[in-house]
C-alpha cells in the first residue's frame, strides 16, 4: 500500500483566492469576494477577473449582505457578468513560467490581461502545486513569490516588505505574484525553494 499525497494536496485554489491588484492595505476587505461567492461564480463559468467587479456592482446596487447575495439568482449573476464582460474583457496572452529543479520545464499559460500572476498560477494545475496564495493575494505573505525576467517592474514598498522575507529573494527579479499584472510576452520563473517534492 502506498500513500497518495499528491492527489490530496492538489486543491483547486482558484475557487478560493481572489488576489487583487490595488494596494492591499487600502482596499477594504468587503470588496474581495468571499470563497463562497467566488466558488459560485466559478461554477457559473464566470471568469476570475470579473469577480471583484461583480461584487462591487452588487454592493452599489444595495445588495450588501452575504444572505442578500445568496438570494440573488444565478441568472442575475450571469446577466451581470455578460454586461461587464462586454465592457471589461481584455484579450488573452501567453506567458511562460520556467519551473525549477531537474524538471526545468517551461509552461505556457494563457491568461487574461488584467489578471494577476497569482491568479494565473492558481488556475493552472501544475503551477498551483508550487505557488500558493495563503493570504488571499493581499501582499501579507510570500507564498506567491515569483521571478519576473521579461516584463519586470519595480515593486512598491509594501510589497518589498514581504518580498525580502521570501526564500530565494533576488533583487531585480523577485515579485509577489499577487502584485503583478499580466502583460504581453511576460516570462516568469518559479523559485527553486518552491520545489515540488513529490513528482
Amino acid at each position, binding site marked *: 500500500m502506498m500513500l*497518495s499525497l499528491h492527489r490530496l494536496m492538489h486543491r483547486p485554489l482558484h475557487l478560493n483566492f481572489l488576489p487583487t491588484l490595488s494596494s492591499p492595505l487600502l482596499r477594504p476587505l468587503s470588496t474581495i469576494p468571499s470563497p463562497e461567492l467566488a466558488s459560485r461564480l466559478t461554477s457559473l463559468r464566470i471568469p476570475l477577473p470579473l469577480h471583484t467587479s461583480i461584487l462591487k456592482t452588487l454592493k452599489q446596487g444595495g445588495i450588501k449582505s452575504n444572505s442578500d447575495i445568496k438570494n440573488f439568482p444565478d441568472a442575475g449573476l450571469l446577466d451581470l457578468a455578460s454586461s461587464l464582460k462586454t465592457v471589461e474583457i481584455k484579450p488573452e496572452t501567453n506567458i511562460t513560467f520556467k519551473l525549477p529543479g531537474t524538471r526545468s520545464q517551461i509552461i505556457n499559460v494563457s491568461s487574461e490581461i488584467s489578471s494577476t500572476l497569482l491568479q494565473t498560477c492558481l488556475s493552472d494545475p501544475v503551477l498551483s502545486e508550487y505557488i500558493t496564495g495563503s493570504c488571499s493575494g493581499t501582499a501579507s505573505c510570500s507564498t506567491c513569490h515569483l521571478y519576473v525576467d521579461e516584463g519586470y517592474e519595480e515593486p512598491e514598498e509594501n510589497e518589498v516588505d*514581504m518580498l525580502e*522575507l521570501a526564500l530565494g529573494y533576488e533583487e531585480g527579479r523577485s515579485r509577489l505574484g499577487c502584485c503583478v499584472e499580466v502583460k504581453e510576452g511576460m516570462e516568469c520563473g518559479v523559485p527553486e525553494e518552491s520545489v515540488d517534492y513529490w513528482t
Partner: protein
Amino acid sequence: MHSHASAFDVIDSLPTPFGLIRSGVAPDHQDVKNASSDFSQIFSDSRIRYFGGVTVGEDVGLEDLEECYDAVVLSYGCEGGTVMSLGDDSDSDSSTPDCVYHARKLVDWYNGRPNSSPPEFRLTEEGDLNVTIVGGGNVSLDCARIILKAAVEDQSLTTSDVTNEAYNRLKEITSKANKVNVRILNRRGGMQSAFTIKEFRDLFKMSKVGKMGMKILSSEVEKSENEESLEELKGTRPLKRLWKLIGDVSANSEEGEKANLEVRYFLSPKGYERRDDGGVSSLKCDVTKLEGAAFGQRAKKTGEEEDVESSLVLYSTGYKGKVLEGLEEFFEDGKYVNEGGRVGVRGGGGEGGSEGGSRYYASGWIKRGASGIVGTNIPDAKETVMSMVADFEGEGGGVRRRKNFEEILRKRGVRWVDWKGWKKVDEVEKRRDRVRVEEQVREKIVDLEELMTIGGGGKVE
C-alpha cells in the same frame, strides 16, 4: 506516481480547527486568516476526518494512537511561555504583583479562545493606562496595536473578528483612561529587533495619520549603532530597510494627545514596584549594552537602572513547546529533535496483533521552534511529508490494518467534534444577530461546553 489513498485523522485539543490562524493571528489581520479556507477544502475529502476537542495526553494516550495509526505527525505548536519571576523574592509566585501576565492571556482573550478570561486593566491615580510589553516580536506588536486601535477608535478594530466582549471592554477602559501609553521593551539594541518590517510599518502608518504618538529615542538609536551591529547591518538587506524605518520613526517621534507607543531598547526587567492594591506600578529594569561578536551579541548589564511605569505588564519573550508524555527521549530544548521531520518510532505489540510501532514525525513550530511566518510552514510541511512518503513507499512500508480511532473514543467516553460539527459551529458564529457590525465576519463562541454541544460532541456509550 503514488497509487492510492490512505486515511488521515486530524486530532485537535480544541473543538475548533485551524490553530493559530484562529487563536493567534490578530483579529484585524483577516487576510492572513483566509488561509483557513485552504484547509477547509481538504476536509471535503472523505479520506480525512476531524476529531476536535480531543486532547492527546489527557483524553487519549500515545498507546491509543499507536493502535490506530501507522504514522503520527506532531504538529501541536509551542504553547509554553514564561512570565518572569523577578526581584529579590523571586522564588515564590506570590511575588508577582497583579496585572502581570503572559501576552497569550491578552491574545487568547481577544481572539475568543475557549475559556479564556480578560487581563485586569487598572488605571493609575492620574487615570492613565500604562501597558508595558516585554519582548519585541510580532506578537508584542499585535498586542500593542489592538490596544492602541481601541484607544483611537480605529474602525478596522470594529469590523474585525475580535470578540464583542473584548471589543467592549477595551473600548471602555481606553476611553475611561486619560492617556493610554504602550511601551515595548527590547533587551538588546535596534538592530536586533525581532519584529518584521510590515508589522512595524503598520504602526508607523497609524501614527502618521495623526491618531497616536510614536516614539523611539534617538539616544537608543545611536547606542544601537555599535561596530558589531553595523557589521550585522552590512550583510542583511531586510535589516537595512528596517533600520532606515526605525530611524525615520525616531526622527519623527511625537507625543500623542491620548494614545502613545514607545519602542524602547536596552532594557531588561529585574523587579516590580507594587501599588497598594497589589497591582504593578512599575517594572524595574537594568539598562543593558551589547557585548560579543557580530551575530552573537548579548545584552550585558551596565549598572544603570530605569523604572518603566506600568499598570499592566505582558511578557512575550519566546515560546517553547511541551513534550508529550512518552516522547521525552526525542525532545530537546522545547522541540522535537528530527531529521527531515522524522522523530522516531514508538510502541508496537498492540491489540491489533501488530508488531512494529508507529512512526512519529513533526511539523511546524514543535519541529523547528516558534519562528517564521504563515508561509514558512509550507516548505516545512513539504519536507515532513516527503520523509513520510519515502518511509512508506514500496514493500515492507510498515502499513497495516489498525483500529478505528472512533472505537477508542467511544470506549473511553470521550466526546468529540467532527467536521460536520465544526461547520455547525461555524454557521452559528457567522449569524448576523451575533455581530456588532455587518463587516464582522463572525462572533466566536467562547464557552467550551457550548462549543461541544453545538459541535455535536460524539456519542458517549
